């Protein structure tokens, strides 16, 4: 068996080792990559930036820990941006684990020095409504009456007793909706019901796999913008002038992509080098 034939039949575990090194090794180095800002990410940033202080933003955490590496940095950067602009946040989840992801992000952001000095209060500046089953039906119910969809918050406090929720009846009292999504129910359902039916202004953050499916909604104006994968999160951090986790992890992602491309090229060279032999045999 020749060199190229061996290369074509390379054990997948060899590829696994290369990928493991490519992902793990860059985490030990502080390398800041050049990241171009795309219009779709700028769309979300500009929308949040244009909101006046005190505006109400609904953030739906529709993902679980499996998608954390991509979506958690997005959540943190958007929360940081909103809090720094003194926006009021109504948090919820259409996935059972979503509100817990929100709490994690909140804990990190609320302990950052510049946010901490604002002395933000639960129930006044932000609230976590928790999770409720029903998927897109919950979105429709939010359009008519948020208090009916979520009678109590994540901690069991009736939302009628929460100061922030007074006067927040449906989407007409929400200035911007931001959805972090890793699948169903997610951005597609928010577009179909919150935007199309109730005319909410929607931005989204999606996993890199899902993001290309959302581009039609950007072009039609149903989505003001989209953060796609870790790169989208990194772009947002740069726009907000607060480079954090996503920017740091981009080096690892870049190296691992380079390794995949390297293997694809090598595989094709080996394929063409052995093609003549295969035809003959």
């Amino acid at each position, binding site marked *: 068996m020749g060199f190229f034939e061996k290369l074509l039949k390379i054990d*997948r575990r060899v*590829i696994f080792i290369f990928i493991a090194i490519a992902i793990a090794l860059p985490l030990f180095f502080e390398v800041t990559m050049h990241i171009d800002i795309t219009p779709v990410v700028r769309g979300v940033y500009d929308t949040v930036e244009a909101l006046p202080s005190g505006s109400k933003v609904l953030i739906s955490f529709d993902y679980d820990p499996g998608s954390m590496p991509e979506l958690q940095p997005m959540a943190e950067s958007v929360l940081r941006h909103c809090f720094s602009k003194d926006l009021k946040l109504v948090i919820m989840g259409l996935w059972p684990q979503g509100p817990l992801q929100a709490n994690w992000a909140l804990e990190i952001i609320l302990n950052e020095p510049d946010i901490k000095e604002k002395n933000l209060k639960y129930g006044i500046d932000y609230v976590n409504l928790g999770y409720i*089953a029903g998927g897109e*039906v919950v979105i429709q119910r939010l359009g008519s009456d948020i208090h009916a969809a979520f009678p109590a918050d994540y901690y069991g406090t009736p939302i009628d007793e929460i100061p922030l929720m007074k006067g927040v009846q449906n989407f007409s009292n929400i200035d911007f909706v931001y959805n972090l999504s890793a699948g169903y129910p997610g951005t597609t359902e928010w577009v179909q019901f919150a935007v199309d039916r109730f005319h909410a202004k929607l931005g989204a953050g999606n996993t890199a796999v899902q993001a290309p499916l959302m*581009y039609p909604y950007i072009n039609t104006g149903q989505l003001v913008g989209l953060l796609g994968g870790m*790169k989208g999160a990194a772009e947002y951090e740069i726009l907000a002038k607060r480079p954090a986790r996503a920017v740091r992890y981009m080096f690892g992602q870049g190296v691992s992509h*380079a390794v995949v*491309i390297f293997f694809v090229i090598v*595989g*094709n060279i080996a394929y063409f080098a052995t093609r003549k032999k295969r035809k003959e045999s």
Partner: protein
Amino acid sequence: MRRQLPIIIVFVSGAFMAIQYFIPHDAGVFFYEYGLDWIIVIGIFAMLLGIWSLFKVQLDKVVKRSPGWGYSVVALGGLFFMLIGGPLWGIEEGTPFMQVFWYIYTPIQATMFSLLAFYIASAAYRAFRARTVLATILLLTAMVIMLRLIPLGPISGSNQKLATWILMVPSMAANRAILIGIGLGIVATCLKIILGIERAYMGHD
């Protein structure tokens, strides 16, 4: 009557939900909201059904000592711990419920998702071959999309523009076609169900 009643209920509910979208009268809104609340409650009961189904399947495996029954014991243990742990100790940070969530559930999920990176790399090595013209186009497109995450010096900007064009033009055109196809399919299926042509939801054709 066992056949007609469900068909009548489905017809009335389906027709009502379709009509109320275009005629937002107060009476219609009341029934619409009432219907939504019903669906949310049904969703909650569906979760109970899911828990029961999970319990039964796993318990059967343990009782019959099926291959891998030990995993079923772990699944049942996890299920009961989380079911009881939440009401018993609460769901605030630091409680056993949250510790299991952060230190067991989260790493397990992250591990499962991380494995994708390895399998995608291996699959890309074996599948991305320029065998035909279409395969070559697919290969080049994938390369452009992946290369946007790698600094390429002076050609980074051009590659980024090309990647954005791919996403915003050919990819979006294909996506739109799929979306419109799915939409028309949903409308057709809904009409078949509302009109009683499609009856698989009753458990038979």
